[in-house]
């Protein structure tokens, strides 16, 4: 065989092999099928626009589908690069530079660039917008795929506010499209860079989304997502049992037990940083029994947290001994209080209340105020703390709490995203929106940690603050509720619990139906 013939033969064989490999490789799977959720809350168009994200977890139910962020929580990573491939912080802590992923497209075909990132930040007006913008001096487009944030002062919580559900500022929208249609037009027909594109929305009724095959991470497996608003819990369960929906959010108590008993259905608990705790509003009033630390400690020993967990959350909730959720950054784990009514009575006796005392009211909002407040009141009354439950409508409760009008004991609850310092700032230091009082030494330490850029040193200070709060029994943590959801037979991957501290199904591009 001549050399040229040998070359030709080799080329032909190589080509044949290549063709054979290509033929054997599976064809890219097309999205198919529909997954339907029965949602417990009414979907709001503001959830379609990251610029108006409130500091609550519910908008992220939609944001994770329609949009994408530079950085966001993902399975196994609380600060996962997404539209940003990487980022760096300068040594002086004043600048953060993000390198963007190339070739990312929005649903309308526009390519994402640094201009969109800058635009998205500048138009952001949701939760903590004022705080965020007050601390960021400017945002510069270095080149089409690099954007730089320059702070006025080093701020250790910049990424907590920018890159977590504390705000929606890092969720990117297409500048040209928003400028063309306006804010109202954007809410009517949102366009994002997420795995699903908007199809239709009937306010208060249903939202329908369709898979976006140009999503950078992967093409979703499920073609259509439908979110049906079903306010009544029993009706949500009925829809799940009939197979009309695949996932039903927020199923509690006896209905959750019914899910467990029903073949083909699964109960899937999720958690988000939410704690319910007692606030002793009169601990700074020397005339009040609550000023005595032993009385506050007695309250901690009097509550059977595990009993409440079993009754209300079927054992799925986490017991809380702090007002800071366990999943939050800089959480310090206090030693648990056992359920010990004898010890509680002994402490009350030492404090001068051997026969108990009239403790006034336990105020709470209508939802958690009754579900958790009722057993708490019963436990306190059993040891002699004669207290009455006063459930308040939600708006009234938060207004009166902020105006410092609630007296005696308040059952507070918060699911606001953030970290331990953000919770402490609102509840335990001077000037905090729900702080009825404070201690100067804690205030001093809090100011110190706010400017500390070294995470190890900051951790030490925050641990110290939380220890001091615990030692003074400023609060009585009760429970971190579990969010119980029902799952039907069709989903192979339902997405619940994949992302830490995220209450809903996500990431949507990872969802799968059985047999698909």
């Amino acid at each position, binding site marked *: 065989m001549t050399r040229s013939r040998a070359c030709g033969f080799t080329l032909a064989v190589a080509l044949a092999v290549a063709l054979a490999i290509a033929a054997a490789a599976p064809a890219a799977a097309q999205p198919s099928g529909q997954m339907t959720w029965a949602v417990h809350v*009414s979907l*709001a*168009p*503001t959830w379609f626009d990251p610029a108006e994200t*409130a*500091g*609550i977890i519910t908008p992220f139910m939609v944001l994770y589908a329609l949009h994408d962020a530079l950085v966001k929580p993902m399975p196994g990573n609380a600060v996962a690069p997404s539209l940003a491939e990487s980022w760096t912080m300068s040594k002086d802590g004043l600048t953060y530079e993000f390198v963007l992923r190339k070739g990312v497209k929005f649903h309308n075909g526009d390519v994402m660039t640094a201009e969109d990132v800058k635009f998205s930040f500048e138009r952001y*007006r949701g*939760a*903590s*917008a*004022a*705080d965020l913008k007050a601390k960021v001096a400017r945002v510069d487009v270095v080149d089409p795929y690099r954007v730089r944030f320059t702070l006025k002062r080093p701020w250790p919580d910049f990424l907590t506010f920018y890159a977590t559900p504390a705000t929606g500022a890092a969720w990117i929208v297409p500048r040209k499209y928003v400028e063309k249609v306006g804010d*109202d037009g954007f*809410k009517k027909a949102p366009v994002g860079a997420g795995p699903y594109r908007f199809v239709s929305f*009937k*306010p*208060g*009724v249903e939202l329908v989304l369709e898979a976006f095959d140009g999503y950078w991470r992967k093409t979703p497996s499920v073609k259509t997502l439908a979110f*049906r*608003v*079903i*306010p*009544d819990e*029993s*009706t949500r369960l*009925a*829809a799940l*049992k*009939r197979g*009309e929906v695949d996932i039903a959010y927020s199923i509690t108590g006896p209905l959750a037990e019914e899910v467990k008993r029903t073949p083909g259905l699964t109960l899937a608990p999720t958690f988000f940083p939410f704690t319910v705790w007692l606030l002793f509003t009169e601990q700074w009033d020397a005339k009040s029994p609550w000023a005595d630390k032993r009385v506050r400690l007695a309250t901690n020993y009097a509550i059977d947290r595990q009993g409440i967990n079993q009754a209300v959350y079927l054992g799925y909730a986490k017991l809380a001994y702090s007002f800071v959720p366990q999943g939050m950054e800089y959480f310090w784990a206090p030693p648990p209080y056992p359920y010990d009514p004898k010890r509680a009575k002994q402490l009350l006796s030492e404090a001068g209340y051997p026969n108990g005392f009239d403790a006034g009211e336990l105020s709470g909002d209508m939802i958690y105020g009754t579900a958790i407040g009722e057993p708490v009141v019963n436990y306190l009354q059993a040891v002699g703390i004669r207290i009455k439950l006063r459930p308040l*409508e*939600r*708006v*009234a409760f*938060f*207004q009166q709490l902020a105006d410092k009008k609630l007296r005696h004991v308040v059952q507070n*609850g*918060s*699911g*606001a*995203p953030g970290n331990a310092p953000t919770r402490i700032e*609102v*509840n335990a230091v001077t000037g905090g*929106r*729900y702080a009825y009082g404070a201690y100067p030494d804690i205030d001093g330490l809090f100011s110190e940690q706010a400017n500390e850029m070294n995470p190890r040193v900051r951790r030490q200070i925050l641990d110290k603050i939380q220890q001091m709060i615990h030692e003074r029994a400023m609060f009585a943590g009760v429970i971190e509720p579990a969010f119980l959801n029902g799952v039907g037979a069709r989903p192979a991957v339902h997405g619940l619990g994949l992302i830490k501290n995220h209450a809903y199904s996500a990431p949507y591009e990872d969802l799968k139906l059985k047999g698909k």
Partner: protein
Amino acid sequence: MKRFIVKRLGYAVLSLLLLSLIIFLLVRLTGDPSVLLVEPGASKEDLAAVRLQLGLDRPIWVQYGQFMSSLARGDLGHSFYYRTPVLELYLSRLPHSLMLAAAAMAFSLLVGIPSGILAAVRVNQWWDSAGKIFSLLGLSLPSFWVGLVMILFFSVYLGWLPSSGSGTALHVIMPAFALGWYFAAAHMRLTRSAMLEVLGSEYVKLARLKGLPEALVIGKHAFKNALIPVLTLAGINLVIMVNVAVVVETVFAWPGVGRLLYEGISFRDFPVVQATVLIGGAMIVIVNFFVDVLYAVIDPRIRYER
């Protein structure tokens, strides 16, 4: 007659003006809606920004003036929660409410009127007792309970009907029954008492003395006269069904006006609550107006009343 109509029109307009003021003030007594649109613990600045955005930072009389001037232009405002014109929201829900109300009304009349007639004709017999039990249950049993039991039985256990939502004729059956039973009971009781009164009247006695068949006496002479108060009530009940079927629409996730009102109240969505109540009130006022005019046309004594 002209004077009568103008007078009634004046009362109608005055009623609506008063209603607008009452609902405007009442809804503002419920609290600050901005608290529900931000996270708990939001700063005062965040709350202030939301209030500014919603126009709630202005003095109350300025807000009322703007509300009334918008109303005069047919603008019912923008929903705080849905950020959509309220009229658009209301009109998207109205067809569903009309469908549910029509089905519930048809049920309530088809069941209520014949059972009322039978109860009156067979007074103190077992038809009458059965009718009384039916109406007692209809008036006493909460509609949400009836709805949930129906979902459990017909939807979950038997699998015959969809549990919630709208879209097909099957979707409307359970909510129509749950909503209509209460009104069927009311129509039944009113038909029975109206029939008893009419059956005791002189002209019915005369009709019987003339030897007319009983079916003709009841069907033609008695029933037509007994029907007037029943239809008056039915007209007003229809308006109530359209606007205030809150519980049934929530249980069945029926996308109607009643649920819109419930959402408005839950979210302190002032424009939604104001608009829903005003439109509902306007419907009742209009129905009453036409009924009054019809009465005056039928009965000359009424139009000459001072």
